């Protein structure tokens, strides 16, 4: 009987030790990942974004543009695709108006010859180093990402006055963010620099050979992103 008692005691102590060990394992989160069961909002999905944009910090001409961006995300942080933008409206900046008013004489226009962006076509890569979630007004949770976009392509311009239409290589770099209203619809805000390796910007109305130079064309864009397929493959 005493052997049985000894067995029972050993069994009970083993049970206690096992329960404590399991408890310790449950409580120890030091090796846990920062996010458990993360929602991979980009991984293996297509991204389609119609965008509206306008150039900023223009010296002579401001441009309004529309376009569409496409990406395929190989991982949650890397997407590759194509961007296309076309400008549809251009207008003079206050500097152009000022020069015009100073140089215009009776019977002779002083409006400077200028150029405006026409189309921008780029192979582009999105890098997403930062993503997370926030809560707005203490009530509205929202997922977001911050991304870097780089691209290489061609830009065309339309010339006015003595400047002719043209085309040149155009590297592009920008930063932006997606703000997800659902698992497949997001607001996309970006600031991009469409650089033109050589582009004539402005010249006197009477200029014969307008000078071309490297130009930064900053553009702010806003778009609505659709992530497809709409369902997210999530591992629980």
């Amino acid at each position, binding site marked *: 009987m005493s052997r049985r008692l000894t067995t029972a005691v050993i069994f009970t102590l083993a049970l206690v030790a096992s329960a404590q060990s399991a408890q310790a394992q449950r409580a120890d989160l030091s090796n846990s990942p920062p996010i458990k069961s993360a929602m991979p909002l980009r991984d293996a999905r297509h991204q389609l974004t119609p965008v509206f944009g306008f150039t900023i910090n223009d010296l002579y001409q401001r441009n309004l543009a529309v376009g569409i961006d496409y990406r395929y995300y190989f991982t949650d942080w890397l997407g590759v695709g194509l961007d296309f933008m076309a400008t549809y409206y251009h207008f003079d900046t206050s500097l152009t108006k000022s*020069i015009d008013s100073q140089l215009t004489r009776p019977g002779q226009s002083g409006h400077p010859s200028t150029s405006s962006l026409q189309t921008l076509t780029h192979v582009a890569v999105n890098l997403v*180093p930062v993503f997370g979630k926030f809560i707005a007004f203490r009530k509205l949770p929202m997922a977001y990402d911050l991304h870097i976009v780089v691209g290489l392509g061609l830009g065309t311009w339309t010339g006015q006055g003595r400047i002719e239409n043209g085309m040149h290589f155009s590297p592009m770099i920008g930063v932006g963010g997606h703000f997800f209203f659902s698992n497949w619809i997001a607001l996309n805000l970006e600031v991009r620099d469409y650089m033109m390796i050589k582009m004539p910007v402005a010249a*006197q109305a009477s200029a014969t050979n307008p000078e071309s130079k490297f130009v930064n064309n900053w553009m702010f864009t806003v778009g609505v992103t659709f992530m497809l397929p709409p369902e997210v493959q999530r591992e629980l």
Partner: protein
Amino acid sequence: MRGATSKAVVSCLAVAILAGVVLEASSASAAEEKRKVHVIQQRPFLHRLRLELTPQYGYTINDTLSTHHQAGGTLRFHIDEEWSLGGTYAKYFGWTNANFDQVEKDFQVFPEFGGLIDWFAGGELSYIPIYGKFVLFGAWVVHWDFYLLAGGGATKLIHGGVRGTGTVGAGTRIYLTKWLTLDVSLKDHIYSVPFKAGDEIWNNVVFNVGFGFFMPFNPDYKFPK
């Protein structure tokens, strides 16, 4: 037989007592675990009743004919977790840039430019509508907030006197420690600039970056986690 029975009873009692100890230990552990679980997490960073001093560098991003750098600072008092009141001062260092010279060269005109700035001083009210977090390099959870601000003050132009100024802006604080933040913001200073043809409304959009020092340094919740 009687002795065997009593031994069996003693054995059963001993096992029952040990089992009771096990159950008690498990239930205490479960209670302890339960006690640590909170439905609402405590914020890692508190604003209420704290002073924030932010030395800042600024750069005007919408200048086409001039370049302006700025050194300054903002002192804010946080009334609660969302609202704060503050004062700010910035000294500008500006000059006309290559575009200005190019316009002179290309068109033989002298652009009338009255926008060089000496300093700005003003007050502002700010509100934090958004509070969030992200994971950096898959390892660190970084907390941040987003704030809006509006205010007014005075801008001293180098050639044009002191101009009443309205300010609107937005920014974000990334929490580095319990008392230190990285503060990045955009602020539009709106004022009129005098020209020969009359005053013209001017937008001076400044990108600011600085470190925010919160005092007292180690505030804490009244109750522990």
